[in-house]
């Protein structure tokens, strides 16, 4: 029980201590919440300093909402197995994000699930250590 409690506390610490992988402050995102988006890719941009995914997501009322998802730079994504053509417009995807705190349709990337079931994440950005190779 104590180990479980410690694990939960440590997970929270890591969540709040998420490093600045973005060019902007990470404070806008609620790292304690995850939103799962199931929709269709509108755009996947492979560029520095960030890649981004725009995805059309039907909401509960039948409206299609455009969500913006930001990811780290290609440098890190390549290390996690991504390529510039990993997804393309029209692909059906599931994307898990930490949303912005205001409820607007935007979030920072956590996980991608492709139509064939493959999952992709971002590799922790810690260059200059054996972990980076």
């Amino acid at each position, binding site marked *: 029980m104590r180990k479980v409690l410690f694990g939960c506390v440590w997970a929270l610490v*890591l969540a709040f*201590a*998420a*490093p*600045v*992988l*973005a*060019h*902007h*402050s*990470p*404070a*806008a*995102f*609620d790292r304690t919440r995850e939103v799962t988006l199931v929709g269709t890719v509108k*755009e996947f*941009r492979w*560029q*520095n*300093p*960030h890649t*981004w995914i*725009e995805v059309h997501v039907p909401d509960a009322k039948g409206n299609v909402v455009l969500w*913006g998802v*930001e990811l780290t*730079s290609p*440098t890190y994504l390549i290390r996690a197995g991504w390529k510039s053509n990993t997804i393309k417009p029209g692909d059906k995807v599931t994307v898990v994000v930490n949303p*912005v*705190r*205001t409820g*607007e*349709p*935007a*979030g*920072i990337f956590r996980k991608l699930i492709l139509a064939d079931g493959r999952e992709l994440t971002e590799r922790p*950005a*810690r*260059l*200059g*250590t054996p972990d*980076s*190779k």
Partner: protein
Amino acid sequence: MSSSMSRMAVATVMAFSLLASACSPGPASEQAAAPAAAPAAQTSGGESSGTPLSALAPENIAKARPPAPFDVTGNWFIDVSRNPEAWRFGPPYPTLTAAAKVHFDASQKAAKEGKVYRDDIGQCWPAGLPLIMTRYWPMAMVQIPTAIYMISGFMNSVRIVYLDGRSHTDPDIIVRTFNGESIGRWEGDTLVVDTVGFRGDHHWMDQGGASIPAGEQLRIVERIRMVNGQLEIEYTMTDPEYWEGEWKSTKRFNRVVDEDIQEVSCLPDLNEHLQSTSSKTQVR
């Protein structure tokens, strides 16, 4: 702004190539063995007959100098292995002046509301010193006898530390910048770098809930050493406009051998597609 930044990136890459081919950043003994081609008219401060010599002028590079104790040439990345927040320079923070406390308190209030106060870096303003040193992108450094050229993997921000004995530019004519004007000198096994001439607008000492401005009176002294293969930089920062006394922080950087920096620009279409940078979370 984007086109000028792209030109800067291209120029930077070209400068790197020239440096790599023309200037040996190798052992100090090689520097000392460089041909004594300096004209007799040269002075000790990187000048020739009163005309300042560029740090890249061959006759400046070739001047006889004491051996450099170490060479920082390489790619460096902030060591966050023990603390993922090590990129920040506080807490602890120094005692703030009333002028700074206005911003600090506003950023704390915004953070409690799940918002972000004046995140200028997120709006594509340069991070500037000191934050540019600890972004989550590597910093490429090339050392030659007269200077260290630093290019951040973040927005390709360029910083030059002059080692040729020059003095700081007259404050009446200096062009203020976000990375300032850096002059270095060797003290034993330590490189001491003094940086002044900063811009005092859209320039911050921290990011994300602890907004402390950097003003035109900002002075940063870095004591740089090579410790067990790591680059250690001890920062002493003063700015009487915004805090009392000295703000100290020590950072360590790991060498990156399997990654090069790339061309990175904050282009107009970046934030157009990152809703978080224009959402209601942003407080100006």
